[in-house]
Each structure stands twice: as structure tokens, then as C-alpha cells.
């Protein structure tokens, strides 16, 4: 049977189990859309291609599967670049399909031509320009394999229009044959035995988990190990949810806006088990003074993460889930009662740090943003899928919402991309139709992709948006207050739109709270609605996120208020 390139693409997407695509049509993907319309693959029509890629990202994280995004050539493709970069930094499995001008026009500066493979080379795990229809099936299969295996990441496939139109005899590619790609899943056992001995020796141990632990679904193994050995756990922003946020061993987030106890503990520790982290500068602070006395074991599937920022003593290349599973087995064979007893002092010290510096705020006449998140946490019983934008809203969420499960907290961690939260929430809601999905936003970042409210309404996605409106680009304002003589250069946004009217204009529900006593009723009403809802909270304008480690300072040099 002869199939066109477009038909082959659809056939291969079905083979890969794709049932949802986030996209936006255009001249160079008409053929694909024509075929797509004949299938039962759900297509979510976004309002801007950046929305499509973030939604595919949110879908991938919440649904634990590859997200797919389909856009046209030129501007359609370039509009996805920010979202691709975000997915790349956070290692999210996404396949991006872009249309391209016909192959005989490539290089001619044709209408809507852009070298998207060239542009995205440094922000994709891999990318392809399909030159012949005959290569298409194999490339699609490889792309999905690359996106989800090893350290996951975005993979882009650029398909010229003539390649989509040409009909060939279709043969299903049965096997992937990539001699140069073979990620290491199973770690070296000798290294693991060494790690077990370090567990025994450690007096002040700590586990530090990151996005890799979430991606490899290692939470169960991680939790088991920590509880078995009585080792306290902290996470990077991306690792939140990999260990239950309500467990007594939980220290809270590490880093620039981490908890006092997590930062103190990592610096005083004599042993760090780092699981799926990359020691980003937001976590380490000043590198030379990071955890000076600790023996560091670093588990990661990507060898380039190891020794990149921090020299480690025991590198373990492998999948986090498999590695922690093996460690659990090794630990079970030995008796650790002695070393656990020896840790009493350490746990008491941590308890002391915990009591001395909890997150504090004083809720008086004006709504405190932290109070909104605390109330949201209580009302949702910690069970919602939360996405965030970037800035203060993101940090307050990380501090005040306690995540018990992986995939529950969806944020643009590495790239720190404003405008991420709403489309990501749309993707998460499509992946988890029965879950409550809330985007916690600031008034600045929500306006970067506010148009996607229309998408949510069109597809009956009951996404809830909580806007913490301080009429500032709050995180930058905070830096200006602390480090730039309170010169609030261009960070005031006192002309924010009327979000309630805006919501209504889009066909969504708009609610607003201006006084503290309105917070709970507004949240209750909004959360119980089965529609798309924007809830706006007029919060204290100059509230800052504390504690804070100023950029370039050591991780234990924290400003507490």
C-alpha cells in the first residue's frame, strides 16, 4: 500500500501511542493536518505556538509520557524555541514536528523558511531534517526513542512539504539501530558496594534528590532508602515531589530560596547522596564553599552531569530508579542499627534548625501571597497538580505547597521561563482530566501567555489560575530592593488588566479577592467550579521571598527576612 509522508507520520504517531497533539496549523503542515483530521487523535488548538510546546511539556510531566507538538514552518517553528529550551533544560520528553518549505526551496529564503534544525541544535537532545519520505518512519521511531530514553529531552523533526506529499510503499521500521546511542541504565556494582560502606560511615548524611529522580520514577525506592536508613532528604526545585513533602525526614527545598534547615544541613553534612541532580548554581551558591566536609555520591544517567559543577567522590552512572533499587537490596543484607543510632545527634540538630527558622509571615490587613498558597494547600488537601509561572509565585509555591507525589509540581526550573504555567496547566489537565490542576501565577508572567485561556475554554479544560497580583515584576523588584538601592527600574506594572473582566471576555469565570477574609471564599468558589477560572488576589505589593541566599554567596549565608 502506498502512503504519503503525511499519512506515514500519522501512522507512526499512532504506533508510538500518541493520542493527543498540541498544535497550530499553517501552510507547511496542511497536509499533516488533513490526515490528522481523519483520525481520532485529539488535537488541542492553542493560540500561540509557545503555548503548544509548553502544553506538550506539561502533558509529558503530568502524564508520564512523550508530549507532541505540531507547528508550521518559519514563525510557527521559531515560536516554539523558548519552550523547547525549557523542556531541554528540564529534560522533558517532547517531540516537536515542524513543517518546512519544500526541499527544493530550502536555502532560497523562501516564504516562511527558517533553518529550525540549525536554530534548535543546541536546545534539543537531537533534531532531524527529513530529506526523503523513505526516511520518515525510521526518524519518527528514533525521535520517540531518543525523547523518552536515557536522560529524556525534546527531539525536533523538520518535515519539508514535498516529503509530506510524496507517496511511497510504507514499510514499518521494526527495530531501532543507533550504534552511537546506548544509555547506561544499570550502575557499576563495585561502586554501589562502596556507597553502602559510606552509608555506614556517615554521621551527618543527607539525600539530595532532583528532577532525575522524578523523571525515572524513583520516588518509591528513594523514600524506602531514606526511611530505612533515617537519612533526611532535601530536593532541588525540580526534585519536589520525589520525596513526600509531609514526611518527618523532609527538609524542604535546597538552594537560593530553600529552607534554612536544608541549606544548613547540606553544608554541615559529611555525606551527600545526590540523586538525579546537576548541582545548578541556584542550589550550590558559591561553589568553593558548598558542603565542604561531605563525601559526595552522585547518581545520574547522564555522565556529563557528574563532575560538571561539583567534584564528586563516588560517581555512579545509571538510572536513578534501578540504582536506588539495587542500593535498597544491598542495604537489606546488612545491619545498620549502629550507624542509625549514631545519627541521633544529627537528627536533633536538624530538628533544632527546623524550629529556629520556619517560613514566617504575618497576615494582617493586606493579603500575603504565602497565605493564599497555604490556604490553597489546605483546601486541596495537598492533592492538586500545581504548575507555576516564574519568579516569586514559583518560589512561594515551592516553599508553601507540600508535594507528596512526583509529577504533581510542574515548573520551568532550568530555563525559568515566564508564561510557562498556564499552557503547562492545560497540558497537565489534558493528561489528567480527573485531577484538579492549578496554575499559580504572578500578574506579570500570566500576561505572557494569557491568550491560552481561550484554549482552555474551547476544550472545556477546567484549569484554575491563581494570580498573585502585586502589580510588580516581583522577583526583579525584590533584587532591586535588596541589591540595587531600591531603584525599581521598569518593574512596576500598575496598569494590569481587570483579570475578572478578561476571564469573562474569554468565556471563563473571573473571581477577585482584595481582603484577607475573601481569600478562602474565593478559592473555595473557584476550585469547586467545573469551568476554567481565573482567581485574582491583590497581594502585598512589596512582599519578598525569604529566606534568600544572595547570588554568589555560600549556601549557608542566608538572608532570613
Amino acid at each position: 500500500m502506498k502512503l504519503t509522508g503525511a499519512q506515514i507520520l500519522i501512522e507512526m504517531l499512532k504506533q508510538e501511542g500518541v493520542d493527543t497533539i498540541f498544535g497550530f496549523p499553517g501552510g507547511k503542515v496542511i497536509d499533516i493536518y488533513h490526515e490528522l483530521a481523519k483520525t481520532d487523535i485529539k488535537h488541542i488548538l492553542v493560540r500561540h505556538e509557545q503555548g503548544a510546546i509548553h502544553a506538550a511539556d506539561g502533558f509529558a510531566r503530568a502524564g508520564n509520557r512523550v508530549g507532541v507538538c505540531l507547528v508550521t514552518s518559519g514563525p510557527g517553528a521559531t515560536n516554539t524555541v523558548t519552550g523547547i529550551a525549557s523542556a531541554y533544560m528540564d529534560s522533558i520528553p517532547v517531540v516537536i514536528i515542524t513543517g518546512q518549505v519544500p526541499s527544493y526551496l530550502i536555502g532560497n529564503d523562501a516564504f516562511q523558511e527558517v533553518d529550525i534544525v540549525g536554530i534548535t541544535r543546541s536546545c534539543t537532545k537531537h533534531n532531524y531534517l527529513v530529506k526523503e519520505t523513505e526516511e520518515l518512519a525510521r526518524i519518527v521511531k528514533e525521535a520517540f526513542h531518543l525523547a523518552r530514553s536515557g536522560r529524556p529531552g525534546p527531539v525536533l523533526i523538520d518535515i519539508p512539504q514535498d516529503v509530506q506529499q510524496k507517496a511511497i510503499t510504507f514499510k514499518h521500521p521494526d527495530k531501532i539501530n543507533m550504534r552511537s546511542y546506548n544509555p547506561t541504565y544499570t550502575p557499576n556494582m563495585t561502586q554501589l558496594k562502596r556507597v553502602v560502606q559510606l552509608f555506614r560511615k556517615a554521621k551527618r548524611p543527607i539525600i539530595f534528590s532532583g528532577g532525575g529522580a522524578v523523571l525515572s520514577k524513583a520516588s518509591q525506592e528513594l523514600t524506602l532508602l531514606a526511611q530505612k536508613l533515617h537519612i533526611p532528604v532535601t530536593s532541588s526545585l525540580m526534585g519536589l515531589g520525589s520525596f513526600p513533602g509531609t514526611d518527618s525526614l523532609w527538609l524542604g527545598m535546597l538552594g537560593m530560596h530553600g529552607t534554612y534547615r536544608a541549606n544548613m544541613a547540606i553544608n554541615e553534612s559529611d555525606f551527600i547522596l545526590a540523586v538525579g541532580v546537576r548541582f545548578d548554581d541556584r542550589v550550590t551558591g558559591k561553589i568553593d564553599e558548598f558542603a565542604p566536609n561531605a563525601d559526595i555520591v552522585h547518581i545520574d544517567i547522564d555522565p556529563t552531569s557528574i563532575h560538571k559543577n561539583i567534584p564528586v567522590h563516588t560517581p555512579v552512572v545509571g538510572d536513578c530508579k534501578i540504582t536506588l533499587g539495587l542500593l535498597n537490596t544491598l542495604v537489606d543484607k546488612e545491619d545498620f542499627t549502629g550507624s542509625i543510632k549514631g545519627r541521633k545527634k544529627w537528627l536533633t540538630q536538624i530538628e533544632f534548625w527546623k524550629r529556629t527558622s520556619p517560613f514566617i509571615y504575618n497576615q494582617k490587613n493586606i493579603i500575603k501571597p504565602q497565605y493564599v498558597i497555604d490556604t490553597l494547600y489546605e483546601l486541596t488537601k495537598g492533592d492538586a497538580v500545581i504548575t507555576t509561572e516564574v519568579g516569586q509565585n514559583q518560589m512561594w509555591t515551592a516553599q508553601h505547597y507540600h508535594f507528596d507525589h512526583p509529577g504533581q509540581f510542574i515548573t520551568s526550573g532550568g530555563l525559568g521561563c515566564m508564561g510557562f504555567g498556564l499552557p503547562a496547566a492545560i497540558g497537565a489537565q489534558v493528561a489528567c482530566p480527573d485531577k484538579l490542576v492549578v496554575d499559580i501565577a504572578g500578574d506579570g508572567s500570566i500576561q505572557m501567555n494569557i491568550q491560552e485561556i481561550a484554549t482552555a475554554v474551547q476544550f472545556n479544560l477546567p484549569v484554575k489560575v491563581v494570580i498573585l497580583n502585586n502589580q510588580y515584576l516581583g522577583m526583579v523588584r525584590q533584587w532591586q530592593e535588596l541589591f540595587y538601592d531600591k531603584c525599581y527600574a521598569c518593574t512596576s506594572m500598575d496598569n494590569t488588566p481587570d483579570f475578572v473582566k478578561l476571564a469573562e471576555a474569554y468565556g471563563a469565570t473571573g473571581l477577585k479577592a482584595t481582603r484577607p477574609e475573601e481569600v478562602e471564599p474565593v478559592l473555595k468558589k473557584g476550585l469547586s467550579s467545573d469551568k476554567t477560572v481565573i482567581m485574582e488576589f491583590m497581594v502585598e505589593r512589596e512582599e519578598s521571598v525569604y529566606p534568600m541566599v544572595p547570588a554568589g554567596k555560600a549556601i549557608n549565608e542566608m538572608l532570613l527576612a
Partner: protein
Amino acid sequence: MEDKKYILSILVDNEPGVLARVAGLFSGRGYNIESLCVAETTDPLVSRITMVTKGDTSIVEQIKKQLFKLINVIKVYDLTGTEHVQRELILIKVNAKPEFRAEILRIVDIFRSKVVDVGPEHFTIEVTGSEEKLSAILSLLKPIGIKEVARTGKIALSREAK
């Protein structure tokens, strides 16, 4: 830590865009490329890139891992500090006025190089060898007047066990 020169031999898929991926990795991460030489191997599906780079040990370790992470990179050999042979080829177009011609030919002879193009006013000389040899001949020809130079950059292969 002190910067040192490293010589890497990288086998890659012989496909368009692969060199751009390798070069882009270096420019994007701020690594140095001192020289770069690419050509097909006996397997038409594979090319060999020989690259000289500079950095301290930890940077070069990171470079090797980052290179290997590229999907089209099949193998990365670090030849630094191992038994290997390395060569570089250089073409030198030198001013050859009658009064210098004999001197130039003497130098060519001493360096076991050869003249590959000749004109009334110039010789083009082909020399292969180590970096030291090439700099030596260049410094001898310089006073006579070098018009143009083209060099390949280093290529290298490891020695087989004896």
C-alpha cells in the same frame, strides 16, 4: 590547573550537520578548538574528526563527555599521553626571486619536503610533519618572504600494540 593541549580523535556519523553539532558544542560552551580536521573513513558511513583542544583536565573531561553525548558521535578517543603518530600538512607559497631559489630548494631538501608548484616569482612547498618541524621551516622561510600558507591541522592515529 594549567591549560594543556589535548588531541581527540572522534568517529562520527558521516551525515550533513554533524560537524555543525560538534563545532556548536564548542562555541556554545566556550571551549577552544585549536585545529580541526574532518574526512570520511574507509567506512563511508563514518567520518573521523581529529581535533586539538586546550583546557585543564576537568574541562577536557567534560568536553569528551559532552561530545559523546551527541547522538551522531560514535566514539571519542583521547590520544593525549598515549602512543600515537601525528602529522600535519602545510602548503607554503614563498617568494622565489632568482637570488633566493637555490636557498629555498636547499631548505626544501633539508626538510624532506617538496615543491609542488613553481612560477617565475614563487614556489609552493608541501611539508608534512610534527608541529615543531612545520614551525622550523616556516621560521626559515619567513625572511625570504612567505606569500600564503594553508595548513590542515593535526591528524593522528594511535599506535597498535607491538
